[in-house]
C-alpha cells in the first residue's frame, strides 16, 4: 500500500488515529441528538393520539420494513468485515465486502422507493399534502408527516453513507489503506453502524405498533 503521510501537527500515527476516532464519536453524538428531536416529537404526539398512531401504522407494509431491517443488519455485518479485512491487509476481500455493503444499501433504497411511491399513490402524504380517500382518523396527516420526516432524514443519511462507502472503496482500490492505516474505513464503518442503529429504532416505532 502507499504509505499514509502523517499530518504534521500529529506526533504519532496512534495519536492521529485516536483523535479521529474521538472526533467521529462526538459527531455521532450530534446525530443522535438531532434525530432525538424527531423522536421527542414522535413521543409527544403518540402520547396525545395513541389510537391514531396504531391505525396509521397499519398503512405501512411490515414485510417491506422487515426486509429492510434485515438488509441493513446484513450491510452492517459486511461493513464490519470490510474493516476487519483492511486491518488484516486483505484488501481485495475488503473491497468485496464494501461492494456488498453498497449492494445491501441499494436494496434498502429501492425498497424505500417502492414504499414511498405507494404512499404517494394512496395520498398518504405529510401535512397539507395528505389526501387519503378512505376513512381515516382526522389527525392522520400528522403521523405521515413524522413518518416522512424520520425515514426521509434517515434515508438522506443512508445515501450519504453510500457515498462515503464508495469513497473508501476507491481509497482501498488505490492502495491507500491497510494494516498500518485503516482510519477512513473504520470511521465510515462506525457511521454506518449508527445509520443502521437508528433504523432499528425507527422500524418498531413506525411499523410495529399495530
Amino acid at each position, binding site marked *: 500500500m502507499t504509505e499514509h503521510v502523517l499530518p504534521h501537527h500529529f506526533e504519532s500515527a496512534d495519536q492521529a488515529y485516536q483523535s479521529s476516532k474521538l*472526533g467521529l464519536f462526538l459527531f455521532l453524538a*450530534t446525530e443522535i*441528538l438531532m434525530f*432525538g428531536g424527531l423522536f421527542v416529537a414522535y413521543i409527544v*404526539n403518540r402520547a396525545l393520539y395513541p389510537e391514531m398512531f396504531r391505525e396509521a401504522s397499519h398503512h405501512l407494509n411490515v414485510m417491506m420494513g422487515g426486509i429492510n431491517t434485515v438488509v441493513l443488519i446484513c450491510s452492517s455485518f459486511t461493513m464490519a468485515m470490510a474493516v476487519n479485512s483492511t486491518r488484516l491487509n486483505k484488501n481485495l476481500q475488503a473491497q468485496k465486502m464494501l461492494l456488498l455493503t453498497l449492494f445491501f444499501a441499494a436494496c434498502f433504497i429501492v425498497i424505500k422507493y417502492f414504499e414511498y411511491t405507494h404512499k404517494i399513490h394512496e395520498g398518504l402524504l405529510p*401535512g397539507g399534502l395528505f389526501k387519503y380517500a378512505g376513512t381515516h382518523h382526522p389527525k392522520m*396527516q400528522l403521523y405521515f*408527516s413524522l413518518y416522512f420526516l424520520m425515514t426521509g432524514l434517515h434515508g438522506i443519511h443512508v445515501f450519504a453513507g453510500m457515498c462515503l462507502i464508495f469513497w473508501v472503496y476507491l481509497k482501498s482500490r488505490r492502495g491507500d489503506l491497510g494494516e498500518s492505516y485503516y482510519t477512513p474505513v473504520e470511521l465510515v464503518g462506525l457511521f454506518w453502524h449508527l445509520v443502521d442503529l437508528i433504523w432499528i429504532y425507527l422500524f418498531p416505532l413506525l411499523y410495529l405498533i399495530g
Partner: protein
Amino acid sequence: MEHKNFLQEGGWKSWFVTLDHKKIGVMYLFTTLLFFAIGGIFSTLIRYELWTPEATFAKDLYNKFFTFHGAIMIFMFIIPGIPAALGNIFLPMMIGAKDVAFPRLNLGSYYIFIAGALLAASAIVFGGVDTGWTFYAPYSIKTQTAVILVTMGAFVMGFSSILTGLNFIVTTHKLRCPGMTVYKMPLFIWAIYATAIIQVLATPVIAITLLLLVMERVFQVGIFDASLGGDPILFQHFFWFYSHPAVYIMILPGMGIVSEVIAVFSRKHIFGYKAIAYSSLAIAFISFLVWGHHMFVSGQSAWANFLFSILTMLVAVPTAIKIFNWTATLYKGSIVLKTPMLYALSFIFLFTIGGLTGLFLAAVSVDVHLHDTYFVVAHFHYVMVGGTVIALFAGLHYWWPKIFGRMYSELIGRISWFFIFVGFNMTFLPMFWLGRQGMPRRYATYEPMYEGLHKLATLGSWVLNVGLILMFGGLLWSLFKGKKAGNNPWGGKTLEWHTESPPTVDNFYEIPTITEGPYEYGVKK
C-alpha cells in the same frame, strides 16, 4: 535563523486555502466583528425609533429591525465570536500543540459559517423577517416574510458551531504537550472545552427545530400549528432546549479570558483554580436543565415551573464562585490598569449586575410581572454585552500584540474603554426601571410616561457607539502604525507567550514539556 511569522507565510491567496488555525482564527475574527458592526447598525435604528413614543418607521420595518439585530448578533457574532476567533488562535498554542486536531475541518467550518451567514443575510433582500430571533410559532408559520432563508441560514451556521466544538474537544483531549495534565491547563482552555461540549450537544437540537419549522411552513406538518391541531408551546420547548445552553456558549469563553487577564495583570496565582475549572463544567451541565425558565407564563404546567425555577437558582452558585475567586485573586496582587485589565474588571462589575438581575427572573412570581418587559432586555444585554463582549475586548487587547506583533495605543484603549463603559450603562441601566414599570418588549410605540428613560437610553447608545468606533479605529491603526511588540509584553506564563509575536506557522520550534502550572506568580512562603 529568521523564521517567517504566520501572517507573512504565503501570499494573500493562501488565506483562502489555509490550514493554519491562526489564519483561520484571524479570518473568523474579522468576519464576526464585521457582523457585529452590521448588527450594531440595526440596534442604532431600533434606538432611533424609540427616541419618541410615536412611530418613526413603518411598524413592520421596526419588527424586522429587531429581528435582524437579534439574529445577526446571536448567530453571526456572539456564538462563533470568542471560540472561533480567539479560541482557534490560542487553544493549540496554550496546550503546546502545532494546530487543532482537524485543520481541514477547521477551514471547512469557516466556509460553512460564511455560507450560512450569506443565506441568512439574503433574507434582507427578500423582504426581511419579522418574527423576532425566537421564531415563535404560530406567527413564524403564518408570516409572509423570508423565514425559511433566515432559519436555514442559522441551520447551516449551526453546523459550523458543531464542527468547531468537535475539533476543540478532540484537540484538548489528544494534543496536549508532554507534562500538561488537565490541572496544568490554563483556565481559558477549561472554558473553551466546556463551551465545546455544549456546542456539540445542544446545537443539533436547534437544527432539527428549525428544520421542523421549515417543514411546517412548506408542508403544513401540523406539529406546531394550533389551527392544524399542533402545539405552539412544543416549539418553545424545542427552541429553548438549545437556546438556553447557547447563552452559556456565549459566556463561558468570556469567563475564561477574564481568568487569564486577572491573573497576569495582578501577578498572582488565580484564586481557586480547581473551583473555577469545575464550575465551568457544572455550568455547562446545569445549562441543559433550565430551559423552561423562558416559559413560566407560556401555559406550561405548574410542576414544570417549579422544577425550572429551582434548577435555575442552582446555576447562580458556580457562577458566583467564579466572581468571588476573580475578586479574591486581586487580594495582595500587584495590579496595573492596562486596557485588558480595565475590561476584565468591568466584566466583574457588569456581569455581576447581569447575573443578579437573573435572580428576579428566576423567581416565578416576580417573573410573571417582568417576563417580556424591558427588564429582560436589560438583563440579557448586561450578561451578553457587559459580559461576553467586554470580555472579548479584554481578550482582543490582551492578545493583540501576540497575534499581530503590534502594540495597540494604550491611550486610545483607555479613552475608548471609558466611553464604552459609560455608554453601555447609560443605555441599559434605565431599562431595568422601564421593565419594572411595565414597558413590554418589541414595542415600536409606547406610552408617553416611558419617554424620558428611552431618550436617556438612546443617548447612551450614541456614547457607546463613539467608544466602539474609537476602539476599533485604534486597533486598526495599530496594525500599521503601532509599536512592534515583543514576545511577552505582559510577562504572562501561559505557553502562547513563549512563542514569537506574531507566532511562526508551527507555533513552537520544538514542542515544550511542562513542569509547572500556568499561574506560578508570587513568592512562595
